[in-house]
């Protein structure tokens, strides 16, 4: 991470630094190097991640952590051994910073080392701490709201440079090129696509304030412009999505020995489960969950499946008896990591809806008497 050298130049005696001291360094480097990129990933972890890192390291990884004023600096090394690699192995090495809020249990890691280190090193490293560490996924609507706030608060226009969308129904990506973000999201809605990644510029007074990138898996990049906006705006907005979902997905397991259910409801603005084909599509979407297995109790006319996530043994009953709702009812094992994965699976391969806590409502005899 080149910024470290810049930061050290400012105060050669200092041994501990503040996160904000990286902002001018990032800006300075980006002004000189058009290929510069700082990659961020926001994730959920109840425990401070460095506590986890220092407890154990996944196979092939080693790390050393250094504490600073408001962040930790992690030197990460990964050795990948594979027969199809020249010399049988390759090494990935780099540094990343991790900071966050222990109370919310939401953290952000960043690195300006290359994309290979970010994807194959840092992100993979974090993912191997599952289920204690959970990735975060934003829906298309949550992404749009982030851009709404950026646009309103900064009085800027969000100009999309390029965006990648996917259809819920068909294979293959859809590319959206140049346009205002409202057009992108209107396009997504019209085509019934979900937005996956957006490269954008914040433009105010005909000046580019920030050139950045945001993906639904809570990764985002800084390319150029006012780096402070990443920390003051983008990070808090992504953290807010993570905090909200983390809170909703926490403590959902059914207590053993008790007849207590803690369901989560996905609500849709339109009727998405009106035909046997819709039901089948939902079940097929769930059946595609990596390392998951479904059991179909009912397929028609109503859907009821049981789903096990073999990553951590979380299991769920998922059902729908109304055309605009899906209920996810966790069983005795349930992690934030698993709920996050399942919700994202439904969002991607079936349909995006809004999440709600499912509150039981009092029923009376009249509710059961039909005409």
């Amino acid at each position, binding site marked *: 991470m080149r910024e470290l050298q810049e930061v050290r130049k400012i105060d050669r005696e200092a041994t501990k630094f503040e996160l904000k001291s990286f902002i001018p360094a990032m800006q300075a480097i980006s002004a000189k190097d058009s290929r510069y990129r700082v990659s961020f990933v926001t994730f959920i972890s109840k425990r401070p991640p460095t506590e986890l890192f220092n407890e154990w390291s*996944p*196979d092939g990884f080693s790390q050393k952590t250094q504490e600073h004023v408001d962040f930790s600096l992690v030197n990460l090394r990964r050795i990948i051994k594979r027969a199809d690699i020249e010399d049988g192995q390759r090494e990935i090495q780099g540094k990343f910073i991790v900071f966050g809020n222990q109370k919310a249990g939401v953290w952000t890691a960043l690195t300006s080392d290359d994309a290979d280190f970010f994807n194959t090193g840092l992100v993979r490293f974090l993912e*191997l701490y599952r*289920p204690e560490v959970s990735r975060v996924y934003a829906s298309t609507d949550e992404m749009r709201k982030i851009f709404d706030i950026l646009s309103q608060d900064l009085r800027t226009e969000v100009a999309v440079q390029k965006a990648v969308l996917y259809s819920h129904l068909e294979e293959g990506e859809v590319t959206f090129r140049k346009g205002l973000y409202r057009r992108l999201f209107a396009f997504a809605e019209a085509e019934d696509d979900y937005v996956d990644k957006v490269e954008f510029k914040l433009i105010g007074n005909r000046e580019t304030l920030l050139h950045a990138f945001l993906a639904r898996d809570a990764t985002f990049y800084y390319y150029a412009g006012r780096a402070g906006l990443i920390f003051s705006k983008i990070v808090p907005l992504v953290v807010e999505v993570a905090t909200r979902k983390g809170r909703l997905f926490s403590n959902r397991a059914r207590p*053993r*020995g*008790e*007849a207590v*259910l803690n*369901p989560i409801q996905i609500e849709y603005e339109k*009727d998405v489960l*009106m035909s*046997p084909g819709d039901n*089948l599509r939902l*079940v*097929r979407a769930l*059946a595609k969950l*990596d*390392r*998951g*297995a*479904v*059991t*179909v*109790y*009912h*397929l*028609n*006319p*109503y859907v*009821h499946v*049981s789903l*096990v996530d*073999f*990553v*951590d*043994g979380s*299991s769920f*009953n998922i*059902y*729908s*008896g*109304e*055309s*605009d*709702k899906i*209920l996810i*009812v966790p*069983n*005795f*094992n349930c992690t934030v990591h698993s709920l996050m994965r399942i919700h994202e699976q439904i969002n991607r391969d079936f349909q995006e809806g809004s999440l709600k806590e499912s509150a*039981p409502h009092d*029923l*009376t*005899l009249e*509710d*059961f*008497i*039909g*005409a």
Partner: protein
Amino acid sequence: MAPEQAAAAFRECRRNLIDSFTTYDQVVDIVSCWQALLSHGYPQELTYFDRYPELGPKVLTPDFSALFMRRYGIIFEVKRTFPRELVAIKKELAQLLSYDVSIPFKANSEGELVSPETHDIVLIISPDVSSQVSTKIRELIQGGDLHFDRNPIIVEYFFEGSGRVSSYVFRKFPGYNGSFRDLSLPHDRRLEIIMGEQAKPFRVSVSQFMPTKLKEVLCNDQPPPLYLAVYLWNNVFYNFLTTDQRDMWRQGYPTKILPINIELSALVAGLKRDYLPLARIRQAAVRESLSFLVEAALAEYLGEDRWRVGYSNRTMLLGTRRFGEPGEGEHDTIRESAGMLAERYCRTRLGAQADEAVVPRTKKGRQSTLEDQA
């Protein structure tokens, strides 16, 4: 056995297993509907809803029963099919007749027993057979071959799923039928007034009965081995893994088969304590499910009610299950666990000759069995 015969035997074996699974699940639905309806609809009047009744000195086990105001009871029997031959019909009716005696009902979860002043006997059946059953009962009663002191009442059930909200509908059969003698209930809340006089059905939507179903899971019938095996596989076995075994899956060997040692008494105690605290779990049912897993080559019997289960994430290897009406050209196939267990069971039981009993191949090769890990 010729390959065609073996394939046919395999298909029949699989179909029977899946039928037992879906039939049982539908009874669980129906019981859950009535439990939700009576618990929420009659909170003041319902003394106790007994999901697992064992009534009287003869330990009669109807599908469920309900006691109202400590004075009126209903015994419910659910039949998805009903025979057409007289002898078989009489056998079914004999079961209903066995309930036609003064029986103490459970009045609370502590087991207090109360003999109501009267009770009726409700037969919940499909509209496909309700008319035929009604006619037969009338003939037998009028011919003097059948006599009930308590009223047998036919209630039809069907599922209505064409609208935005899917519901089970329960309707008192409008032809020859008995009456609810539920005079102890407030007049406008009497089942006889609502379902009989006003001819209104009860509708119980999926969202109304599902919480009850998910809490209870089982009903008074012994669950088929496949049904309980799926429950154990999905909800219970993971918790028998050691920390090291769990780490192995988490860290990158997601399909590795992990042995779990099970002792029947400990498993049953755990089910009663932690997983199905409201249900009546019979040891015999759990034993049968574990034996089913042995026949499916997913467990081995160690003797003295102990088993070793080869637990694994078989996502990549799941059997397909067909959905749709028989005879339709196209079936919707889904890779899912009940299908996987059924196929493995039938394949192992019938041997390798069955044409459809080919082990699905994956990128990692042939599906491994317990023996492969040794």
